[in-house]
């Protein structure tokens, strides 16, 4: 049964490429955001709250 089901599963390299690209990309993004300074985040968070009054 398992063998029969897997016989329809062709082009597995496409699935693997997709997952590999995402994994690499995601790990980079996590490492990246950890290195940005807190002051920068604090400043950006407040951006919408600045200077809107008439």
């Amino acid at each position: 049964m398992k063998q029969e089901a897997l016989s329809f599963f062709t082009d597995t390299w496409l699935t693997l490429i997709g997952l590999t690209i995402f994994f690499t990309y995601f790990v980079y993004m996590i490492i990246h955001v950890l290195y940005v300074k807190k002051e920068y985040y604090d400043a950006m968070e407040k951006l919408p709250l600045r200077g809107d009054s008439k």
Partner: protein
Amino acid sequence: MTEGKLDHFAYDDKIVRNFLMATMIWAGAAFLFGLLAALELAHWPFNLNTEFITFGRLRPLHTNAAIFAFAGNAIFAGIYYSTQRLLKARMFSDALSQIHFWGWQLVIICAAITLPLGYSQSKEYAELEWPIDLLITLIWVVFAINFFGTIKKRREQHMYVAIWFYIATIITVAVLHIINSIELPVSFLQSYPVYAGMQDALVQWWYGHNAVAFFLTTPFLGLMYYYMPKIANRPIYSYRLSIIHFWSLVFIYIWAGPHHLLYTALPDWAQTLGMVFSLMLWAPSWGGMINGLLTLRGAWHLLREDPLVKFMVAAITFYGMATFEGPLLSIKSVSSLGHYTDWIIGHVHIGALGWNGFLTFAMIYYLVPKLWNTKLYSLRLATAHFWIGLLGILLYYISMVTAGITQGLMWRAVDGSGRLVYPDFVETVTKIVPLYWVRAFGGLFYIIGFALMAYNIYRTIKQANTKVVDTKVSAAPLTNHKVEDEEPHKKLEGMGLTFSVLSFIAIAVGSIIEIVPTLSLHKYVEPSKIIDPYTPLQLAGRDIYVKEGCYVCHSQMIRKLPSEVLRYGPASTIEESMWDRPFQWGSKRTGPDLARLGGKYPSLWHFKHMMDPRSTSPGSIMPNYPWLYSKKTDFLILRKKLSVMKGLGVPYSDEEVSQADLNAIKEAKIIADDLRSQGIEMEKLDEKEIVALISYLQALGQKGKK
């Protein structure tokens, strides 16, 4: 980077007011279309035997009105307001803003005219025909120029997270719309897509899923990141989380489309890829939800006191629910139960009514007093709107999920001897009709809430005595857009073009890996199973099938599931739909699958069934189609249709193309003679649309049979 002097300028608030008013008007239309559609399902006579509002044509009108008219105008209102303030700049061009506004309204009016008339490509959320597709492209380009022009002339160095979501929206919607709309015109209001069968299905659901992702999710997330802090007067919970949220979501979402095609004839690798990436969507989606909700940390009392916060928190919670349920439904075993049922309708509406609707209402309640320089007329009315609307959503959702699971279980129920427990499909429909009534009442409550809002907004604007003027501000100009010596993402947020290119790459990777391999159809087609293309009359009948929106309630895709094979016959293959332009696999089974309908009943059965479905299927909720018995088939255009199909690679000979109309007339005579021999008397029966439709229905599943 900035000089000492300040620029004095005004934001273009008029364009925001225009889009807000359009949002209100089209919301009313979209909701009423939805209510009528719900009533038509609960009680079929509500179709009124009228072709223009029959369910197959009304449903696309409702979805287009809800997505592109209501949500579309809301997005533009929210973006025009927040972008100017976040970038400290008036929009790039007032003229482009006006062209965008009026052009978009023209698109909506064109849709409102052509869809009831039956001009449809039958591709969900992409039904509009080619001239309107071109108009959409033009107007979207105008919007893009205006938006990116504003980024270019901004006075704020760094682009806040909301702007990233807007960028991703503009780029991705353009890519989706253009690729999914590549078609060859047959006439002024008809075309055939360049893709066929499985390719068309994959491209369409890559588009369809990402229309939800990049038209109903990413722009609204951008709005959430701006308006939630504004309404709560607190910064977003975590800017760091927003970076991960954005890049993960944009990268992952584009891959998830194939989860709409699980167990179908789509190659398994694409199905699995779609499922796995859908499951991965849980993380960024809930990251975004948590970021939105925790913005209220330390200020939860606002939830008790402020109706705007109530709307916003409920919207974000519904986003969390919908994005939990979406991946859940993408798991193959869950999909085998839920797909084609009303569970999906419930899932869609918790997103549309709860997430998009409530967030838009919060935004409107926030913006109108600001833009008209007054206070909201009544907070109590707004609170009443919230509770009535919430009751409506819950009634809608609970009834549809219950209906969906009930029907899904009935479809798959097999007794000890291996036979279907409910072999008569109608039995599984009549069982859930009471829940259709509950759904309609849910929709009615939602509309009552909206009516309270419309009154509240009307009184708010009316009480604003002063002449409304654009908001005047001062800001220091940016003299240099080059960002140096900064950390990577901080640097990136200072570079609009680079950021946009990276966003494009993020969505392009998944699109290319999924779509390009399936364009080589020959890889997946078994040469010995290749079928003949449709005869001219069958093609004419197929176009009538598409025009009447039959795909809205009937699939043509028997999944590889034992209960489906028992009910409908052998599972559908890629070869069976390889000439289908557009594909008709469908996404909902209010009625049974039709992939192997051909030869199951005599032509007389179809003749009677389309006139009055209850005469052949007691208990059916299908509308009557009396106009098919008076309207004539257009035989002359068949040469053009076959010619276009031949140009797209369908193996018609030159003779078949040049004789298309004559051959169709001969085919029609055979069916008409058969009907006459069984007692049907009708003048010029051969020419009627019903005969062409019967020809097509009798061909379903019969191609390639020896």
